């Protein structure tokens, strides 16, 4: 175990892997700052470029980029009240009022340092979880893994919208993703499904053109519709003053940062919850930690604790999300679903092998998370003034370059013009999904997990018939799935009852 831990470090420190991590970090840095482009979309864009890399190089590149995007996303949240990433939204609540009060430097210092601590705690959690998770994973067979995958989709759908309608939409999108994954040759019998007589569809739809269309196109459209500079008309401020104060704040409230990091790790472990939930739970915990009602009133008006909590949770959840992704092949978020496709491209099957045969690669991910965040925060602290200027670039100047990246990325999947058409079709479907409030993460999760789920289902049915449904862990997981699905309804009913009691 210790040897694999050290091997993991050396894998990251090899010049090629380290250089690729730096390239990934540079991309993640820009993506985190640009509100028009999400970290998940960029992961999807970069997937085609990993084909010729070794697994350690590919994960250094992808994880370096992804973890940095979460850190730098806080910068535009603080400066302009525009979340650089969807997972940086909670930072706006107190970060932007701090900037308006002339404390932008302090807020940024706090956000960056809490992000660093959060990332380190997440990386430690991932490293510690490996020996605990290993025996658990080894007891899981195809039926249990099938149920876990189904729970992953259930979790993300149950959180995709409020109430029964939100759940219906979430599940429908998850099912649509699963259905789309069945296009092409069926693995067991070789029969063609939904090929519509088109040879391109025989092999099934490639991850990249679909994911790029689903994530990137609606964000580009939104950027074009707004027609302004991507961050709006933000104020020019000297940010350096106060940065040190923000760093000191992180250590003054160390236990709050620690607790919020733990929240991030736990939410990350739960498949489907993701950073969107972690940041708000951490923010809620920060508010709950106020000494009294008067202290609580400071939140929302520029309290540094409102920046520290979400900042820490956003980054610690990266380590947490990697735990189910690596150990069970159940991604914790849309970004992890895309990362999962990276595993499959590299020929790595998430599960027991990642904790035995490929343990050093798993540990290289831990090291990447830690090293990438340390370098990013040190770099951010030195170039804060220049960073802000990037977000004032006009949207119209950015769009053609992003579109180019989108289509080159999708074209490299198969080298056919059909890849571009697939991207356009799924981009259009995705645009209407967003427009009409149908969540995209369940679709992506369904599409990425579809083939794995079908294989597990097929093996379970072939080996056990229907008796696999009586396996103790399967029964437990079915109960858990029911709880996951029913809980939002119970919560809604409780809220209604509490509301009517107050009225």
């Amino acid at each position: 175990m210790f040897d694999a831990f050290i091997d993991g470090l050396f894998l990251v420190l090899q010049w090629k892997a380290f250089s690729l991590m730096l390239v990934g970090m540079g991309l993640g840095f820009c993506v985190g700052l640009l509100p028009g482009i999400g970290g998940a979309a960029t992961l999807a864009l970069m997937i085609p470029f990993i084909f010729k890399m070794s697994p350690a190089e590919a994960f250094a590149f992808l994880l370096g980029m992804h973890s940095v995007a979460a850190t730098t996303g806080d910068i535009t949240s603080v400066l302009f009240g525009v979340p650089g990433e969807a997972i940086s939204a909670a930072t706006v609540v107190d970060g932007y009022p701090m900037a308006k009060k002339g404390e932008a430097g302090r807020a940024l210092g706090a956000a960056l340092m809490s992000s660093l601590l959060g990332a380190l705690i997440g990386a430690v959690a991932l490293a510690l979880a490996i020996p605990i998770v290993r025996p658990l994973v080894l007891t899981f067979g195809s039926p249990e893994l099938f149920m876990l995958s189904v729970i992953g989709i259930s979790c993300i759908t149950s959180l995709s919208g409020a109430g029964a309608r939100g759940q219906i939409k979430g599940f429908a999108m998850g099912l649509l993703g699963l259905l789309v994954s069945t296009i092409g040759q069926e693995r067991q019998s070789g029969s063609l499904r939904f090929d519509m007589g088109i040879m391109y569809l025989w092999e099934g739809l490639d991850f990249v053109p679909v994911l790029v269309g689903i994530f990137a196109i609606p964000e580009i459209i939104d950027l074009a519709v707004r027609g302004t500079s991507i961050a709006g008309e933000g104020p020019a401020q000297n940010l350096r003053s106060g940065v040190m104060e923000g760093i000191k704040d992180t250590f003054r409230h160390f236990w709050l940062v620690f607790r919020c990091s733990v929240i991030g790790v736990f939410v990350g472990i739960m498949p489907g919850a993701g950073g969107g939930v972690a940041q708000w739970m951490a923010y809620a915990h920060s508010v709950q930690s106020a000494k009294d009602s008067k202290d609580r009133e400071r939140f929302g008006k520029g309290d540094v604790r409102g920046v520290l909590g979400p900042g820490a949770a956003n980054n610690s959840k990266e380590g947490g999300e990697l735990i189910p992704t690596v150990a069970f092949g159940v991604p914790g978020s849309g970004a992890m679903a895309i990362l999962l496709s990276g595993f499959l491209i590299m020929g790595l099957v998430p599960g027991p092998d990642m904790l035995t045969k490929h343990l050093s690669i798993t540990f290289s991910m831990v090291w990447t998370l830690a090293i990438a965040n340390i370098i990013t925060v040190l770099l951010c602290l030195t170039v804060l003034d220049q960073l802000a200027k990037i977000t004032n670039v006009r949207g119209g100047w950015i769009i053609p370059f992003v579109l180019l990246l989108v289509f080159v990325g999708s074209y490299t999947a198969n080298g056919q013009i059909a890849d571009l058409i697939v991207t356009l079709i799924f981009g259009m479907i995705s645009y209407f999904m967003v427009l009409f409030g149908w969540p995209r993460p369940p679709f992506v999760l369904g599409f990425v997990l579809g083939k794995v789920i079908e294989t597990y289902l097929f093996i379970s049915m072939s080996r056990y018939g229907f008796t696999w449904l009586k396996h103790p862990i399967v029964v437990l997981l079915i109960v858990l799935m029911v709880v996951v699905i029913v809980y939002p309804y119970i919560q809604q009913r409780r809220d209604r009852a509490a509301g009517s009691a107050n009225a």
Partner: protein
Amino acid sequence: MRKGRVLFCIFLIAVATYAIRSALGWSFKTKLFPLSVSIPLLVLATIQLLQLIFGKGETDEGAGLDLDFSSDVPAEVARRRVINTFSWIIAFIVSVYLIGFPLTVPLFIFFYLKFQSEVSWLYTIAATAITWGFFYTLFQWLVHIQFESGAIQTWLGW
């Protein structure tokens, strides 16, 4: 917006119906999974459609864990810009089909920056040259990606 929501539900129902009809003729192994997902999809999309038609009506809120489109721009302007952007995307794909990727890249960047973003000549030419240079160096010279020839080059026998 309501009409659009109804149409999207009908689209989902049509997809699920097509999947069920196609799968019914396959062997058990082949149809098991597609049927297990398309039947509940049909049921859920139908419930959603019925709720839209006969229910209390839906708010314009987006999906909980997803992007929300900007609502600051007037609907008519937003619609025009959406159609405009999709037109550029379609033009890009048609251009790749006709003249191939390597030629489309500089032309697209040039025309978009000059005529859509209305950027100065100097910036347009500089950005086009840098992008073309970057594209050629990275994808053709370093990575050796084989781009298909355009239909026009094929027709001319180039």
